[in-house]
């Protein structure tokens, strides 16, 4: 059944983020990742995350339900990370509350929260980028904008294109093996056998399809010349350049201020 891809796939749309050129979005993704990286204080990290969420909802026209569906698993992993960090890191600062005989302090818990939220934020930014950027546009942009050889850019793009097909293929293989009466084995050895029996048909099918794809591409002159024409390229325009410069300035200023100890992004004893 045809669908619009998984959570990790581009979804066509008409939002301002969809219309924005890929390089500007790439710059945005990197800028917010750097901001998240450089922040260890809970409220600051929350602010970065909030800005990213607002961008997703306002400019990416994401629905809350879709965003939750795309990030809940990662979100739970981050919460687990926060809990473990809160228990294991040395206590620092005033006690916030006690649980199971452990004192949770503002600085330690805040630090754990900021680190967990940072991981979530970086994942969130990546999801926004992937879901609003056509792989082909991205391949074209990095070829033209960053001068990456188009053969390399296209191999990345083709790999992205193949992900949903492989996901469908895997679901069919699971179903087919279920019909053969194959149960899921338990234990590490059993799990490895399950994996082998699943991966072998997937690998064989993928190799066959990859062979056809390569022949199809070559018979249409792919790779014949060092360069190629790109039609309907979503090139970086003035708006994109302005946004990229603004984001670059923000990151530079932020790190300079941090470096000069004018603002603090981490808890100080």
């Amino acid at each position: 059944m045809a669908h619009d891809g998984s959570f990790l796939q581009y979804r066509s749309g008409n939002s301002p983020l969809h219309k924005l050129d890929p390089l500007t979005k790439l710059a945005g993704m990197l800028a917010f990742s750097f901001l998240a990286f450089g922040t260890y204080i809970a409220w600051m990290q929350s602010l970065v995350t909030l800005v990213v969420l607002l961008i997703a909802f306002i400019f990416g026209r994401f629905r809350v339900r879709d965003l939750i569906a795309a990030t809940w698993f990662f979100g739970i992993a981050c919460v687990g990370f926060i809990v473990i960090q809160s228990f294991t890191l040395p206590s620092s600062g005033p006690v916030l509350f006690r649980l199971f005989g452990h004192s949770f302090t503002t600085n330690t818990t805040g630090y754990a929260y900021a680190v967990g939220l940072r991981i979530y934020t970086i994942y969130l930014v990546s999801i926004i980028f992937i879901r609003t950027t056509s792989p082909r546009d991205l391949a074209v942009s990095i070829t033209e904008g960053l001068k990456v050889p188009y053969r390399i850019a296209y191999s990345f793009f083709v790999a992205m294109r193949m992900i949903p097909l492989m996901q469908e293929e895997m679901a069919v293989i699971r179903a087919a093996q279920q019909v053969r009466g194959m149960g899921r084995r338990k234990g590490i050895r059993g799990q490895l056998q399950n994996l082998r029996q699943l991966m072998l048909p997937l690998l064989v099918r993928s190799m066959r399809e990859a062979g056809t794809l390569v022949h199809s591409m070559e018979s249409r002159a792919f790779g014949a010349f060092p360069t190629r024409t790109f039609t309907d390229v979503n090139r970086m325009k003035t708006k994109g350049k302005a946004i990229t410069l603004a984001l670059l300035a923000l990151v530079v200023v932020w790190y300079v201020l941090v470096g000069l100890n004018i603002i603090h992004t981490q808890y100080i004893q």
Partner: protein
Amino acid sequence: MTTITTHYTSTQPIVELDRVSFSYLGSDREVLQNVSLTIDSGDFVLVLGSSGSGKSTFAMLLNGLIPHSIPGQLDGTVKIDGLLTMKTPVHELATRVGMVFQDPDAQIVNVLVQDEINFGMENLRWDENVIKMKAKQAMSQLGIEHLVGRNVMSLSGGQKQKVVLASVLALEPKILVLDEPTANLDPLGTKEVFDVIGHLNHEHNITVVLIENRVDELVDLVNRVVLLENGTISLNGPPGEVYRKLRGRTGLWLPQVTEMAMRYSSETLQLPMTVQEGCDFLVNGINHLQWQLKPEIDQQASILKTSEPLLEVKNLQFQYHIKLPLVLKKISFKIESGGIVAIVGQNGSGKTTLARLLVRILNPPVGTVFLNTQDIRHLSVKDVSSQIGYVFQNPDHQFVSDTVYDELAYSLRIHGFSEAEVEEKTREMILRMDLQGKEQTSPFSLSVGERRRLSVGTMLILNQKLVILDEPTIGLDPSHSHALMALLAQLAKEFGHTMLLITHDMRLVADWTSHTIVLNQGEILFDGETREVFQDSMLLREAHLTEPPIAKVVHRLRYIVPDFPHDIVSLAQLERIMPLNVQSMYERRTDYGS
């Protein structure tokens, strides 16, 4: 009347193969051996051959993929439009030879339709304005302008194959090479693709080299047939001449009308191929014949009427997600024990979803699917799999073992058969499926036809009462296809097994099934005797199905011979009312169609 349609006067060879032999790197076996062939500009050549005969290798020789991209030992010369492929890079040949493969999903590179069509031209560094103009022309030629902006994943199989064709046509090739381009398509998609190819050949003088097994749909288009056997060209000539030489040989498709004429005539007549020619053939014969006015045409496996149905579906409704449209809309039907039942309908009609609900790959709502009166929701998945077999469309998906022997033995072992029983049943199935000598081979290393036979064997070996087969004959050559269907019919008739066939092959449906269910957009349009399906032109139109040629011949015949039984849909049924012993009538006549 002539049976050979030559669209163009031969001008000059556009394809020249001179003593070509080829073996793949690392293999001593010559896939092609000493092949010499010329194809004239404007020809429409149909390449026939069983699985492993070298058809795909032949195709890849024509656009230079061999030897430039696929290494191996190539002897002899291949000239395309005067250029030696050995010395001409693939990209230069790309503007002369367009290549279309079987599976559209595996050959589409891009996400958006227009990007896919532009792909080849962009690689050749054509000017952006030229690219846009050529893309527009190609889309217009194929009538797919409305697909601009669409995601290829959202297209039907026929639409995807047209996009691939447009991408190739935009490069303005002189030759189109198509390797089974309709294998994955429903009857409507197949017709669309063949119509387009025929149009390109007729109106744009594009030479077509088509590798196909479906010969019936092509009789009006093809002016030359090449038969490849074991890597050599064994027959080459006008279709009538080639088909006449195939008389009495098994393992190759003939147009059904030609096959009919061969059964009634042993002389080397000019054989009919089209429906009209078949009609003329029968009209001339009928003047001398008697036929049974009330023929008994209950074919192959008669349904065993039992008090309870083997399978009953009641008001089954299904959707993959609450926000998505219904795939099945409250459908109900019953299937009795014994017989071969067909489920037909165009792609997306809900056939595969239905099959998956029946074997509990998907869970049907409680109280909607009953097997031997038991609600299958109350059976474990293992219980269901021991009673219902399901042969997937792609054999590779179902393989779980490293050798053919173990693959067949797998189901027996997990169901607790003794090793002696396992060996006996496995050996028997190896023989039945014609897989002798392959016991220790990896299932994935088998040919397409062998993989298909193995996958069917793995399901038949457990003797399940109900076996669902999703396009079981795709990739099989006619002799293996016939043998498989005969085996299924035998199991149905002698042991009361029920075979549920999901297929797009209407000839298969007409020849082998007694009961047909027609699905359309999740609803049952028809549930009854197979022969009735082909009497109802409205139904056929609505469900986008086509009649087999014999049914078309008989339909036309009833306007000429009003009392001729009009519900004949297969050759076997025709023989029942017109026994083959009347052939002497034909042998005295050679002017059936004049």
